């Protein structure tokens, strides 16, 4: 019992499943061997954005087992998610929607069958473009998950000596986990086994089971390893339902892995946004007005209202403040969660506008932020359990080398390169959801800890092992952790940067209880204790710094240095934490410079739907990227004192890069991404 002397938490333990992954023995959803009679399914996606699928003709010479469409597919029970009512209706709601499924004995035959299918479609006029004067714009009653759409205090129309009034636009962004959404479905009588790539095995089991009229214990979802999700696997996606349906109809085990192209439409994306930010300040840089209005889109199928302006409610003090959201429904795919939904695009607009205000004030952008540091949460009026934003800015400035920065743009030139630096703040809410964990004493000081969590590659399995080891007072080698299975004790979704807190809370409870009671098995449900917690005033903060160089000949932007300083409570594992931080920052670089779903309005589609054409940062784009953190104590958030770190790296890092582009060149890019063709004309 020397838990405090040899704490595992805080140690850079390598991923416990790392050897399995690098040797290829770790199995992903489409890789399970499920028998010689396995069949393969290929999704037929709608080639039009709106209309009715009238008929499907199948060439009898095609080597397929089955072709499913709404004319012959089994009926599903009603569910909450219209995207999962696959092949139930003749209505086509967006280009790329699943309208048929071809099942064959080989992947190639299924794909060929899908390409050869003859669809009779009655096409209807469509509308694919988000704009601020769209006649169908409305104010959603809440934005995700349940925030008020609008908040207001004081009067944002008051005059201010110094103002900025700017509009920033961000394009559709696509999650693109390395492992595509994939399912292997096997029926055993009326029981269903799904090997499925997702962020929430128990949620997928419940959702898919309900659609097929199954009791919860009839569905078993196995999610041992996940090759990334970034939010797009937070709930069951159409692949899981289609695979189960195909297996049911054909009697074969069925594998369905979506091709990369389908990930751009069928599984969710980050909505495009148009954001207007108005800031007013006194001449000495005290904010008097913060007004942030965000426009975004959803599909005809369901309302998904991104919480774009919500982070702005918590960042800076100002007596007159307003945030609002406007939404329109288009004949386009349904947006979903993508890493820091709301915060990532919202903080582009706010933190670039703050930079513009600093320029208008002739004030250092760090000093402007420090001057407007609130003493309490400006939204709720309640205190923060911990907030070290200013410390992140100050310490980050020291580490990055911000001192003596010439605030004027276009001052530093080396050869053909214009060089500049930028800063932006970061924030992300600290959350926890109820979960249940079980611990068993296996004897001889070995323990099995079980919880239906999912490890998306983040290190969740490793961190939970460390948490359990400390709570049990044993070395990590004595703990066997079981996750990734819906039949294990119920866990919350791997989302909202809340996995470690939620699951760790339950694991801690179970392990402590086992030690305290001396029992050989304990199940701990955190529902009650998590439910009692105050939700307000819990946020992680950080500051991002970027140095960029812009080629005067070509307008090409390169990020020479990207640095993040974070205050995120206790860091449970510095190795996996660093991965999370710099992974988020890398994705932020993609958002600032590369990533864009290119819309063809006439097609009603993002036409660059593969990773050759939809650019994310390549290795050569990453030069120096570093993350550091403060030792932040916060015992109010959860037993580990940890805050979620999976998303904060993408919040503010795009703004830091864009602000650095301005500082390098004097060119202010307000329409992301900052491609060379937008910069070159002004160099």
């Amino acid at each position, binding site marked *: 019992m020397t838990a405090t002397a040899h704490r595992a938490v805080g140690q850079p333990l390598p991923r416990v499943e790392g050897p399995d992954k690098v040797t290829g023995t770790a199995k992903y959803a489409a890789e399970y061997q499920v028998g010689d009679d396995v069949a393969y399914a290929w999704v037929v996606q709608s080639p039009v954005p709106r209309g009715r699928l009238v008929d499907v003709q199948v060439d009898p010479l095609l080597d397929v087992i089955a072709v499913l469409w709404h004319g012959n597919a089994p009926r599903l029970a009603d569910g909450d998610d219209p995207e999962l009512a696959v092949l139930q209706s003749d209505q086509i709601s967006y280009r790329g929607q699943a309208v048929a499924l071809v099942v064959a004995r080989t992947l190639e035959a299924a794909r060929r069958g899908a390409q050869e299918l003859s669809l009779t479609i009655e096409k209807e006029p469509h509308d694919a473009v988000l704009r601020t004067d769209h006649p169908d714009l409305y104010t959603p009653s809440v934005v995700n998950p349940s925030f008020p759409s609008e908040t207001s205090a004081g009067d944002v129309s008051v005059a201010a000596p110094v103002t900025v009034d700017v509009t920033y636009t961000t394009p559709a962004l696509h999650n693109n986990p390395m492992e595509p959404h994939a399912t292997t479905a096997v029926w055993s009588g009326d029981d269903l086994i799904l090997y499925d790539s997702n962020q929430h095995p128990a949620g997928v089991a419940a959702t898919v089971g309900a659609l097929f009229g199954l009791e919860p214990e009839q569905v078993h979802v196995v999610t041992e390893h996940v090759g990334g999700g970034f939010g797009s696997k937070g709930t069951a996606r159409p692949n899981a339902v289609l695979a189960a349906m195909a297996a049911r109809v054909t009697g074969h085990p069925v594998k369905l892995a979506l091709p990369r192209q389908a990930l751009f439409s069928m599984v969710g994306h980050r909505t495009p946004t148009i954001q207007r930010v108005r800031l007013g300040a006194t001449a000495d840089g005290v904010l008097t007005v913060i007004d942030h209005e965000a426009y975004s889109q959803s599909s005809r199928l369901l309302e998904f209202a991104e919480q774009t302006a919500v982070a702005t409610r918590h960042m800076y003090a100002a007596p007159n403040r307003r945030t609002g959201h406007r939404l329109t429904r288009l004949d386009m795919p349904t947006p979903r969660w993508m890493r820091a939904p709301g915060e990532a695009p919202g903080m582009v607009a706010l933190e670039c506008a703050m930079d513009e205000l600093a320029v208008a004030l002739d004030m250092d952008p760090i000093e402007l932020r420090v001057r407007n540091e609130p003493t309490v949460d400006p939204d709720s009026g309640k205190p923060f359990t911990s907030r070290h934003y200013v410390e992140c800015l100050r310490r980050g400035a020291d580490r990055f080398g911000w001192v003596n920065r010439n605030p004027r743009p276009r001052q530093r030139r080396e050869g053909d390169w214009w060089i500049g630096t930028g800063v932006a703040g970061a924030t992300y809410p600290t959350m926890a959801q109820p979960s249940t964990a079980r611990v068993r004493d296996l004897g001889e000081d070995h323990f099995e800890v079980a919880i239906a969590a999912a490890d998306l590659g983040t290190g969740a399995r490793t961190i939970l092992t460390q948490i359990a080891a400390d709570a049990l007072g044993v070395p990590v080698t004595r703990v066997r952790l079981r996750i990734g299975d819906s039949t294990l004790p119920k866990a919350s979704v791997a989302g909202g940067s809340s996995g470690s807190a939620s699951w760790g809370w339950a694991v801690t409870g179970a392990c402590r209880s086992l030690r305290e009671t001396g029992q050989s098995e304990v199940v701990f449900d955190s529902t009650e204790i998590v439910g009692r917690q105050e939700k307000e005033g819990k946020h992680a903060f950080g500051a991002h710094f970027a140095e960029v160089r812009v080629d005067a000949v070509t307008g*090409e932007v390169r990020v020479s240095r990207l640095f993040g300083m974070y205050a995120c409570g206790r860091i449970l594992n510095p190795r996996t934490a660093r991965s999370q931080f710099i992974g988020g920052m890398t994705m932020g670089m993609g958002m600032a410079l590369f990533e864009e779903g290119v819309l063809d309005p006439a097609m009603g589609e993002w036409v660059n739907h593969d990773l050759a*054409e939809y*650019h994310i940062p390549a290795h050569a784009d990453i030069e120096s990227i570093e993350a550091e953190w403060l030792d932040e104590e916060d015992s109010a958030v959860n037993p580990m004192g940890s805050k979620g770190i999976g998303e904060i790296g993408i919040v503010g890092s795009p703004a830091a890069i864009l602000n650095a582009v301005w500082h390098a060149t004097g060119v202010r890019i307000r329409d992301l991404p900052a491609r060379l063709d937008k910069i070159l004309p002004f160099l």
Partner: protein
Amino acid sequence: MKTFTYRTATDAEGGLEPGATFLAGGTNLVDLMKLGVATPDVLVDVTRLGLDEVSERPGGGLRIGAGVRNSDLAAHPLVRRDFPVLSQALLAGASGQLRNMATTGGNLLQRTRCRYFMDPTKPCNKHAPGTGCPAREGDHRNLAVLGGSEHCIATHPSDMAVAMVALDAVVNTSQRAIPVSDLYRLPGDDPSRDTVLEHGELITSVDLPVLKGKSAYRKVRDRASYAFAVSSVAAAVTVADGRVTDVRLAFGAVAPKPWRALIAEEALRGQPATRESFLAAADAELAAAEPLRDNAFKIPLVRNLVASVLEGLTS
């Protein structure tokens, strides 16, 4: 994916039955087959014909076998020493893994990455003649400003070919020798055919004549690696007494073929090797450009590139 048969070619004489196509590295063709853009009945593998030698030609210059892998060609000591523009162009293309597979002949014959061409569910005069070109109104930021037609504004994606055009390379086929500049055809009213090659005509090698003067390739792209060019320039230049005595210029990613800038070359010969001359030459070539809504930036970009590359070679 359409069912096909596969066999290995036994000689380099060319000749194919209808529906057959040659397969080399497969880095482009196999992708197109998966997507349903290419639907051959028969693949004839030409990678075992021994066409993988780089040799010095009598009298100078190099002969590059059509099967030489891009990575091997880029690293070849004679290429690095005598044709830096070619080595640089190869290394600017694709990724290490792709360059290990891709061959010289296959690289020349790769298809456009126009996003409409790559998607058989969309209209495209190149993959489905007569269906129209949605790129003109739609996404064309990275499509042609030179040499296009109302039927097609696709760009040729190769970096290597741009360097070869500037080098006056000659393509040897199973039937004839073709200057690489003449290998490609402009789309006109038939965008479906990229080259003048007949069905079954096999590229066996590429000849590079002796290069005098310094050469370089510069590629602009949307990220630092693993991206097709937004624009590129291959240049070789000789200067005597401050004047340009010989110059070869080719542009990539601005036209349906690697674009030999003959007008610019003509304008430069005999002129002072100055930025002003370089810009004037670029302007002369680009006067014929016909940009659309979103690709006009390529004109000043190429202009800047020409001046920058030539300044780098002559300073």
